[in-house]
């Protein structure tokens, strides 16, 4: 069978004219309508087809897996880089942490036995744990202090860390339901594997306020302890956090030691501590010699930058009250219920000490001016005597 025969048979089967099958008529008519010659129309159509094919081919070829267009089509891209200017926690995460921690703290303080200890270890760390243990131990003789500051149902999230370094912190505030003073809390996570726990809590000193921190989504940076007034204004503080704490501890000593040009303004808390020390010294003067020293607890100082450039500086001082009993003297300690509870001793013949933790929080200006105490709490935690 020849080609001509094939076409002839095909036209017969399809009941078409040969020209219809070949579309000669159609192309000729289209060319006439476009006022083109038939050959020109065919050329134009071919050029269009070739162009389309080329474009599609390029797209298809570059769509082969591993080539750029595949990534573009599927939305594949390089993973984003870790931002050092954002918070490592979402707000929800931080709130969940607060809820968990404060629930454990509440349970730890309202139950007894091993479960209580486990809850307290879940909620508190370092000096915070030591302080709450002392508070629970002395609850029967310190009812005012024993009231848990954690009863507030919804702790307010004030600030979280910025960046992926450690230690990390959360600053929160609670207000007791009876309308007491607001309490500031510092929660610390020292490394990736260790959860956030309360490192310290302190009642705000009226009429102190807390300046706003940076947005929670971007977090707030920690100011390193070595940062002092000589560094640039953007990164510095009017006084280095550790220097501030050391000078504050020094000026509270008894017998009193003058601190020239203190970088902090006088406050009611240190005034009460100094007055209390003077009163105790006077009260036991005939039987014992009293002295009091304050030292900054190791690794307890944290400075959190605020949006204004100022910082909140958190620190814990360890106060040691020492009694050196005079020769041939016996001191009856029954009246000091805390001491009796902590040591079991009601009579001291040689010496005695009582250890108190002082949780303090300062607002420190960025460039000039003095730091201001905005929150403070003290808690007796230990005693000894002989």
């Amino acid at each position, binding site marked *: 069978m020849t*080609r*001509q025969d*094939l*076409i002839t048979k095909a036209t017969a089967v399809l009941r078409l004219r*040969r020209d219809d*099958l*070949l*579309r000669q008529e159609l192309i000729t008519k289209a060319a006439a309508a476009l006022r083109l010659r038939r050959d020109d129309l065919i*050329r134009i159509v*071919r050029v269009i*087809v*070739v162009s389309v*094919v080329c474009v*599609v*081919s390029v797209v*298809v070829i570059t*769509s082969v*897996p591993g080539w750029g267009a595949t990534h573009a*089509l*599927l*939305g*594949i*891209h*390089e*993973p*984003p*880089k*870790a931002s050092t200017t954002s918070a*490592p*926690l*979402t707000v929800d*995460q931080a709130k969940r*942490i607060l809820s968990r921690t404060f629930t454990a703290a509440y349970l730890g303080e309202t139950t007894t036995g091993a479960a209580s200890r486990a809850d307290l270890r879940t909620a508190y760390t370092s000096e915070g744990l030591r302080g709450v243990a002392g508070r629970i131990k002395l609850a029967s003789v310190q009812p005012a202090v024993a009231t848990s500051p954690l009863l507030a149902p919804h702790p307010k999230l004030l600030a979280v860390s910025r960046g*992926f370094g*450690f230690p990390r912190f959360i600053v929160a505030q609670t207000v007791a339901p009876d309308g007491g003073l607001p309490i500031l809390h510092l929660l610390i*996570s020292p*490394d*990736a*594997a*260790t*959860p*956030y726990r309360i490192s310290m809590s302190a009642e705000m000193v009226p009429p102190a306020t807390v300046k706003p921190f940076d947005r929670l989504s971007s977090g707030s940076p920690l100011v390193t302890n070595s940062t002092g007034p000589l560094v640039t204004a953007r990164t510095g503080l009017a006084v280095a956090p550790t220097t501030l704490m050391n000078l504050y501890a020094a000026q509270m000593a008894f017998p009193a030691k003058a601190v020239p040009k203190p970088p902090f303004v006088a406050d009611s808390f240190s005034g009460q501590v100094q007055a209390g020390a003077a009163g105790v010294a006077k009260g036991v003067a005939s039987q014992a010699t009293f002295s009091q020293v304050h030292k900054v607890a190791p690794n307890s100082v944290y400075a959190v930058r605020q949006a204004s450039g100022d910082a909140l500086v958190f620190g814990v001082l360890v106060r040691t009250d020492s009694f050196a009993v005079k020769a041939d003297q016996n001191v009856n300690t029954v009246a000091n219920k805390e001491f009796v509870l902590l040591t079991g001793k009601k009579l001291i013949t040689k010496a005695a000490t009582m250890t108190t933790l002082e949780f303090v929080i300062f607002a420190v200006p960025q460039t000039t001016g003095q730091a201001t105490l905005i929150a403070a709490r003290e808690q007796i935690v230990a005693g000894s005597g002989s």
Partner: protein
Amino acid sequence: MPASTRRALGAVIAGTGIVLVAVGAWIVIMLGPSGEAQFSATSKAPGAIAVPSDVLNAVDVPVRVTATRADGGALLLAVAPSPDARAILAGSAVSTVSGLHYPAGRLDLHASGAGALTDVSTADIWRLSATGAGSVALVVDQGRGPETVVVTSGDTTALTNAKVTLSWADRAWFFEALAMATIGAVLAAFALNDLWQGRLLTVRSNVAKAKAAAKTSEASA
């Protein structure tokens, strides 16, 4: 354009179209209407399994991570910022997903470290987590990257013989594949038609020549 060149070009276009149809249709069938692509691997090395951000955050659609233990034991799936995940897994025995193969649906695992696993369950670095026994899934949304998914037993016990599956689903991929198949079909149809037409034109030309030759011979007779 010479006829032979035109035919060659038509054949190439037809071939391309057919390939597009085949590949597009195959991807359409593979992905399904939901546009879901799955990859999995079984970790034989003891330790944790990590899905780093290069894989987890490579596409802007949520990824579903499923871990399965053959022995039905406890599982913890958690996602954290990559620097934190690296910090908590530092030194531990970890099988890290280092690549994936499509359409094989296979994940590459790279074993590293030999230390005991830290108990990661109490850490506060995890943005999302899921626990369970036997099989646990976690859907990780995008936008907080770079993040890493860590699969552990929930304590310090090393995982062995655990299967991890990653699934991405994007309906756009299905429609893109469908479009590819459709374009291929149109191209192939066009090119095949052009080839067919060219063949008929050649036949017609031959017939005309034959008729002309016959007329010439009749006239001369």
